[in-house]
């Protein structure tokens, strides 16, 4: 993937995480437990995408 593509994916991922966290703050305590667990899954997946991008870029930078 190019640096531009990486950047776009990272931006989209962070935007989604911010959106997810905003949802969290809105009515968080009243969300069903199952939905809260799904949100944690989503946040973890997004975080892993960001980590993969970071490591990929470090690898390219070293090369």
């Amino acid at each position, binding site marked *: 993937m190019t640096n531009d593509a990486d950047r776009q994916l990272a931006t989209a991922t962070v935007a989604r*995480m911010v959106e997810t*966290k905003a949802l*969290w*703050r809105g009515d*968080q*305590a009243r969300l069903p*437990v*199952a939905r*809260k*667990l*799904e*949100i*944690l*899954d989503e*946040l*973890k997946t997004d*975080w892993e995408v960001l980590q993969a991008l970071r490591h990929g870029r470090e690898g390219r930078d070293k090369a």
Partner: protein
Amino acid sequence: MALADSLRAIASLKDRGIIGRYATTRAVAAVLHSAAVMTRDVDVLLEVAAFDRFAGSLLLTTRLDAALAALGYSERDREGIIVEGWPVRFIPVASDLDEAALDDSISVEVAPGVAVQALTPEHLVVKALLIGRTKDFERIDRLLDGCVVDPDRLRELIVRFGLARAWSDYCTVSGRPDMLAP
């Protein structure tokens, strides 16, 4: 692979007799009661009997690892053993407070027909007070904001475990009025 599946698998360890008393703690337990912060692992408080002893005092997870491997969970990362995609860290009871937390833990339904044991909100607050990092204080904020903490139970724990000073520090740092003040 989802967090609900991971919690289901942990509950099944108890059902299969692989572990005895247990309770989810820290971030995931806080999520079950109220709001949450992102977390990448599942912490499970376990009675010491679930661990193997080495040289008298060192606790190992040998039996637990073998039982988990037999269920197909043998991959590890630096956070813990991977159960349904989530690293799970098993933490032995290390204090009277931990013991009380396990005694008082409650069952929370995470999916139809699936319940896990979790620390109560009040125990999560006192654990966070003891550790006292910024993210622990933030966890207290979220539990208090979620209105899931019983002030009387929290006061009893703070008095019982000598945490009045830590509570006072938290109120100062957070800028919150002391909800436990007479």
